[in-house]
């Protein structure tokens, strides 16, 4: 009798849909429709002047151009190293902030500003750091005798590529650190105590307990970081605008310039669709990986 009452309490589908309807409708208008429209526009030569259906022309041009494949490869390299270093530095940061040292809770607050401050403003700070004449990096380099004179990090191809990457890492590290730290604190202490009694050293405890226990968090963070790094816009746009001579032009910067710099909506949309396809591939790979790990865990 009581059970029936509970069931009826929990099965009001209608009310459930009413409650989520406003959010869903809003998202359908602002995200769903634009997504479909991007696909449609990618088959046209849409611009400010008007649009005509052109079939696969935009894609054919895109995929046959060596410039586009260069940009795509550059984006992958940039994303790969940025994410890898975010994970490594985030892990080091989490281990350090997890150590039972005095000032630990203060350090945990201090790590977050790069994430809280708008990226655009953080990037301005870095612009200053990288400046050849009055930036601190160049200043220290000259003092130490590594550099002969002022060196503008954003003015040369390789250094600009690395500099934008370092800034992106800087933006991402706090978030990764935070999640690794929370993951570490969720690991039962008796695991460590047992290992300690068996004579395992610090590194071996980290390698045999922390690392495997954190695997799901590491995978989640690598997906989230990969996606946000892949379409990272503000940093590159502010620091270099994709220069010098295209050395930091990633897919998203190229898309933006094509679509809203030149108002070539059709060509820009084809690029945006390529980005969507690539991101979706990441995501599918991620869910595949996650389900395999879950299986492993549940089968002991």
């Amino acid at each position, binding site marked *: 009798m009581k059970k029936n009452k509970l069931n009826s309490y929990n099965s009001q589908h209608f009310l459930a849909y009413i409650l989520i309807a406003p959010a*869903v409708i809003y998202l359908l208008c602002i995200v769903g429709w634009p*997504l479909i429209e991007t696909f449609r526009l990618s088959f046209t030569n849409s611009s400010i002047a008007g649009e005509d259906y052109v079939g696969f022309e935009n894609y054919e041009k895109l995929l046959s151009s060596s410039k586009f494949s260069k940009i795509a490869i550059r984006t992958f390299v940039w994303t790969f190293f940025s994410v890898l270093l975010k994970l490594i530095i985030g892990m080091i940061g989490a281990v350090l902030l997890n150590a039972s040292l005095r000032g630990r809770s203060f350090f945990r607050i201090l790590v*977050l500003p790069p994430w809280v*401050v708008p990226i655009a403003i953080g990037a301005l700070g870095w612009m200053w750091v990288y400046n050849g004449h009055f*930036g601190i990096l160049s200043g220290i380099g*000259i003092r130490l005798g590594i550099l002969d004179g002022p060196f503008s990090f954003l003015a040369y191809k390789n250094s600009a590529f690395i500099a934008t990457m370092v800034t992106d890492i800087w933006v991402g590290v706090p978030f990764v650190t935070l999640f690794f730290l*929370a993951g570490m604190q969720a690991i039962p202490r008796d695991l460590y105590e047992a290992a300690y009694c068996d004579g395992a050293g610090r590194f071996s405890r980290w390698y045999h307990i922390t690392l495997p226990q954190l695997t799901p968090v590491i995978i989640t963070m690598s997906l989230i970081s990969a996606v946000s790094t892949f379409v990272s816009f503000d940093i590159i746009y502010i620091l270099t605008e994709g220069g010098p001579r295209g050395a930091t032009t990633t897919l998203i910067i190229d898309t933006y310039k094509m679509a*809203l710099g030149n108002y070539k909506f059709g060509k820009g949309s084809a690029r945006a669709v390529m980005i969507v396809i690539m*991101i979706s591939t990441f995501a599918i790979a991620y869910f595949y990986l996650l389900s395999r790990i879950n299986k492993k865990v549940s089968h002991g």
Partner: protein
Amino acid sequence: MDRYSLPLKIFLYLSIAVFFIFILLPFVEMFYASLRPLKHIFRSPYQFYSDDLSFWAYREMWNTVPLLGRYIFNSFFMAITVTFFTLLFVIPAAYSYARFNFPFKQGSLWVLLAVNMFSGAVLLIPLFKLLRYFDLLNTYFAMIVPGIAFCIPTSIWLLKAYFEKIPVELEEAAYCDGASRMDILFRIIAPLSTPGIAVTAIYAFIQAYAQQFLFAITFNSIREYMPIVSGLTEFIGYQSVKWNEMMAASIVGVFPVLIVFIFLQKYIVEGLTAGAIKN
């Protein structure tokens, strides 16, 4: 467990110092640059210290860019508006996800995550056309309307985790006493989940504040509506760039966000990580 030996302790503190030099370097540089007189900034080679540092730029910046106060106001106004509407959409939706079982529930939750993955930049072209069609380009709405959409998905996930922690028995008791669903949501759930709603609000605010740059440079060209992040470019003049004032204005612009954040950081950290770690 074994305790830290002294050399290990020193090593750990040194590593922490290096880590924080990386994290705080641009802020320190910014602050330092804001204190220097403009002539001194361009003095080469780099000087680590000089005796003519002052807070002069913090006063002068209001004269150089007369609309600076307006830009800071705009940033706050838009971020708060986005936060408000995000909560309006998210509270009922998150409650529904936390309490009901319905067809497509799990599926739609994944779709929400997917929305998160297409940052605004990918969808800018149709958004531009959409906003132009409704004549919203160059208004506050041009930055608010898309802003809300990209705050909704994560906010639903955050708040759902909070609602799930509130025991269903409380609601069932009220339900047996004849309270309606809406009564329950507003009289029982909402007061109990104030911390959760606060975390969600702070998340949405920070997110909204950060997003403004992209939307502002793309959808708005009217100075009066600029947020601080794009208004800063006005320190770049025809003759010279007033770097020290630009840095001072950046610091003033983010200061309130930092203060709010520092006071509430404990809740944010718990709220953000709770959902992810549980799985």
